[in-house]
């Protein structure tokens, strides 16, 4: 496989849920478009950041890519092969190459299993024939790689701190040497000083092992630090996708601009003079999305056109796409 060939390609992906609006018996069935027409590629060794606020569909997108929830429409192409219609049995051999790390590190670990069993479980599942001693050696090697003392093999998750539990989750996700790991808010539950340790660990492992990462996060500072490219979502739709430098140096979508300006910078002088773009109101209810552009109800640039026509994705460069009628202004 050449380096340019994508590991994963997602084409016009849709994940819709049917839900009931408020109002008891009178509530009517409506469609929630959690992910609505998203396309992107992930190349080997690349980190794609997926950012957006709560309810934007970023976690749903991550789970749909891994076929953990059913896809409504569109394609998920893994190494050139569409996988969205595979059943659980057909997916199984592919799973060892695609892993996930969750936000709440303690909740993601079985409290009755030892750390060694947790990290080694994927080995037992996918490579049951390898001898016990070799399995143990691999687990201990992985523990050392993520910064856990290998002698803690027989301890239980509750004996570890949040940061250490996240290391356990990462070790487990990496033990089979996968090609892709979806990290769903991997550092959000951690303290600042521990966050940095995990961010470094992810970056180092990715560099050393050449794994691709999809990093789902609401923290634009962390995303800027780790990711090569960034996808910005709002109410299930793509607003903008760009390389890190393009996105942070010249964000084109008004939502991206507002998101970036909203992040507080730990520097009093910069904070005092930086331009602030204040968005009015709250994210619109996903059950009753606005017509046209989904962001228009909060957008400082919105015009009549935005209410009528869904903005098409304009391509600014090989890596930069934006869905806005007014990005040139």
């Amino acid at each position, binding site marked *: 496989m050449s380096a340019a060939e994508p590991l994963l390609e997602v084409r016009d992906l849709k994940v819709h849920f049917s839900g009931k609006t408020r109002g008891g018996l009178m509530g009517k069935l409506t469609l929630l478009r959690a992910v609505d027409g998203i396309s992107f590629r992930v190349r080997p060794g690349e980190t794609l950041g997926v950012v957006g606020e709560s309810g934007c569909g970023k976690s749903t997108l991550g789970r749909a890519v891994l076929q953990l929830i059913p896809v409504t429409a569109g394609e998920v192409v893994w190494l050139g092969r569409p996988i969205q219609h595979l059943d659980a049995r057909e997916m199984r051999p592919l799973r060892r190459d695609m892993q996930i790390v969750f936000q709440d590190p303690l909740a993601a670990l079985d409290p009755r299993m030892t750390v060694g069993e947790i990290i080694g479980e994927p080995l037992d599942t996918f490579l049951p024939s390898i001898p016990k001693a070799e399995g143990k050696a691999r687990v201990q090697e992985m523990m050392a790689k993520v910064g856990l003392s290998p002698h803690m093999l027989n301890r239980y998750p509750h004996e570890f701190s949040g940061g250490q539990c996240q290391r356990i989750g990462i070790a487990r996700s990496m033990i089979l040497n996968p090609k892709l790991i979806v990290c769903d808010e991997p550092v959000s539950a951690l303290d600042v000083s521990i966050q940095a340790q995990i961010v*470094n660990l992810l970056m180092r492992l990715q560099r050393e092992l050449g794994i691709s990462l999809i990093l789902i996060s*609401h923290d634009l500072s962390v995303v800027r630090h*780790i990711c090569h490219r960034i996808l910005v979502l709002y109410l299930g739709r793509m607003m903008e996708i760009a390389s890190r430098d393009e996105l942070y140096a010249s964000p084109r979508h008004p939502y991206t601009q507002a*998101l970036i300006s909203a992040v507080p*910078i730990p520097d*009093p002088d910069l904070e005092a003079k930086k331009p602030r773009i204040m*968005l009015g109101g709250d994210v619109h209810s996903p059950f009753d999305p606005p017509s046209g552009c989904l962001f228009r109800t909060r957008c400082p640039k919105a015009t009549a056109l935005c209410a009528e026509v869904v903005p098409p994705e304009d391509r600014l460069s090989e890596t930069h796409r934006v869905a806005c009628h007014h990005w040139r202004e």
Partner: protein
Amino acid sequence: MALLTVSHLNTRFDTPEGEVKAVNDVSFTIAEGETIGVVGESGSGKSQVFLTIMGLLAANGRATGSARFRGVELLGLRTDELNRIRGSRLAMIFQDSMTSLNPYLRISRQMTEVLVTHRGLSETEARAQGIALLERVRIPDAARRFDMYPHEFSGGMRQRVMIAMALLCQPDLLIADEPTTALDVTIQAQILELMRELKRSSNTAIIMITHALGVVAGLCDRVLVMYGGRIVEEAPVRQIFYEPQHPYTHGLLRSTPRLDEADASELRTIPGQPPNLQRLPPGCAFNERCAWRFERCRVEEPAFREIGHGQRKACHLEHLEVPS
């Protein structure tokens, strides 16, 4: 006279596993109209200091020391006397606005109750003031929303309602415990703007408790940094960010990824983990993680001392030399 003077405050919790030393010898003052940031990680004691002062300690907690608010000692004050101060002169808002509001009562009822109880207003006057305050915190369509229930508001709007409620009696001091942590970043920006506006337009002193350094940079005049239940550094905001003198403050600043930096190199981390408050190490609580530690740090707890320019720190180092 200082608005709030806290001296030698200690808070302990009795647990089956032993005593937890949540707050250790904390002293500071707050002047009228000042905005203070209190920064620390989980377990640093940043919330417990203020829960202690507000008389909101859990049943297994006890406090010693002193916290004088306008000269009145708050520790050990009778509940009815404390209630006269809490909610009127002294207000506190919390991270989770949903659990702080009564889900069974309309916002109007929860807001007017305070005014009727504390200020003796009539129901009509209280309603008018309540609506005016909701407008002040920029709740759109405030008059109509006034009679809604908490669940009918979004998270950001509930936090605005909380702020409006805290402002009802024009408190002298507003304590905000991680008020934006549960909110999305664009909503956080709205709430921080609201706090800045409050700071400009009123004489209410604000204490902003947060784990996020960025939040205090744009809002606060002075910052207290807490670690292991102690204040380890205190300084005017620019000094904390540009000339930190405690290795922990320095480490915290270095380990925070910044939005304005394109650098994709490794973050400088603080090794290890925050201390266990049941088994604080001898000497300085930070010594095991500190790159500057020397023999004395392991045996002697550093005193919290004045180091000039309104800066204080609890560290044996004379001056923090940072290799560039």
